[in-house]
């Protein structure tokens, strides 16, 4: 149920984002979604790709420092209060969200959000218990392919 997310360290300078994206594009690896967190000095690029192990190898060989993290994708109703409902459930279970970002594609009336939890396994359990839909890797790929 968990997704593998690649994180890259980048300096916060013009053009720094191009090189890693080109490196994985050259290998024919498609990026499903990405998010960028930054300070004035540096940024952390987070990527979800189809072939994460190959992408990791390619990036590391090219000299980037790459970190692998498990994240959780959750279906959220794309209407006012949709996200609030999920957050309330997580809050109620005492689950801490390290960060989150939206998946670039939607599915019908649902948006997909990517969550980074301290404890992803327990988060998945709580979400499933509450009847929410946790999107796994294959399903995510199929959304992209559709």
């Amino acid at each position, binding site marked *: 149920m968990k997704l593998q*997310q690649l*994180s890259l*360290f*980048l*300096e916060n300078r013009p053009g*720094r984002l191009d090189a890693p994206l080109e490196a994985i594009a050259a290998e024919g690896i498609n990026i499903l979604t990405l998010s960028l*967190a930054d*300070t004035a*000095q*540096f940024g*952390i690029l*987070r990527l979800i790709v189809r072939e994460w192990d190959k992408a990791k190898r390619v990036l590391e060989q090219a*000299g*980037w*420092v*790459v*970190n692998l*993290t498990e994240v959780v994708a959750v279906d959220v109703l794309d209407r006012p209060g949709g996200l609030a409902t999920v957050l309330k459930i997580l809050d109620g279970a005492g689950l801490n969200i*390290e*960060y989150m970002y939206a998946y670039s594609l939607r599915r019908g009336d649902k948006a997909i959000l990517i969550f*980074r939890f301290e404890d992803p396994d327990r988060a998945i359990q709580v979400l499933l218990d509450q009847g929410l839909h946790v999107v796994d890797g294959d399903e995510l790929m199929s959304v992209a392919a559709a």
Partner: protein
Amino acid sequence: MPVPNPSPDPSPDWSSEHPIWNPTAETLPRAAREALQLERLRALVGRVARVPFYRDLFAHREIGPHSIRSLADLRRLPFTTKDDMRRQHPLGFLAVPRRDLARIHGSSGTTGKPTFVAYTAGDLRIWSELCARFLVAGGLRPEHTTQVAFGYGLFTGGFGLHYGIERVGATVIPAAAGNTRRQIEIMRDLDPEVLICTPSYALTIADAARELGMDPRALPIRFGHFGGEPWTEDMRREIEDQLDIAAFNNYGLSEVIGPGVSGECAARTGMHLQEDHFLVECLDPETLEPVPEGEPGELVITTLTREAMPMIRYRTRDIARLYREPCPCGRTTTRMSRVAGRTDDMLIIRGVNVFPSQIEEALLRVEGTTPHYLIEVSRPGTLDEVHVKVEIHPEIFSDRMDRMQAVCERISREIQTVAGIRAHVDLVEPRSIERFVGKARRVLDTRGLSERDS
């Protein structure tokens, strides 16, 4: 031959346009001065036998007072280095019983521990006398009020200058360093004519005055004695222009006494060395042979009168030039140029001595930092700023921003602990710091302090 004692009660002629604090000592003819130096050197060699470090070295080389027949015999004596002092930490260099100490100061060292310097009551009297000499040479009169914006503490600057000013009979305001707005309020309330601080702090005061909507040139200060960090002629012009004052340079280092080793007179053609208390050599740092007069070399200082912690041929690592031709001011002493550089890689940042090895030590304390780092020192405004660039490594990289910021803060805290300075930590991409074959260049100093005297 009888030797005149040059430091009894000084009798400055205050009616003169440029008085001399201790005319007997400061205008001693060369021959008489050398006779005095020789007598004091011979006595010193006898006295330092109480220091185990020197006793062992002298025993090994069969050196004693009898070995010193002329000043040229100084060259038979061994050198003393900062490392020697560290190895004798904390007070291994004492030449008097501990109960005879009147005060202990300290300077920053590479291990984060200060190097202690001890003084007897006699040392403190001489220190005040030496500070009085350069203060008067640079315009101080008993009727003046002086604001001391140097740190008061282990650092020798605050107390050294404080007692020198009192010795002259002038008024001291011990404002101490920091709280710039209050410094300006004190100036407006008490009208001091004289300012004592680091040259960079003088510029900070000027900036702060402008921020308060005041013209710094309208402040009551008429002249200042600046020291404690290297500075340039350009900086002197800037200070003089911004504050509308005359800026005088002085030199000293805590290992031999503190401020008071030398200072400028009104002619400002170099700093007069107090040669009745210090024997100063200017040597090629590689060959340790004297350089020709006027050429740059490392200053090596022997303390002729220090009681608590005498130093034999202390290697200052400061590069300067010596000039022996007479000065129009009437003083007969040798003058030294501004310090134009260091023989080692020591940096002076906001008055704190910092070695790149300290930054390295701080990085080693944080697991996962690479051996690749670069220290960038700049002076964007009036104060020094340090950025330490550290290459990212898988061990310290996290997808979480809070953890990454915690790593930067942790490195910064270690640097503060080890080196005593606040540094900005910039994480950079792997292999982005230039690699060097052989000795790596760890420091990029863009302050432009190493330029030669103009």
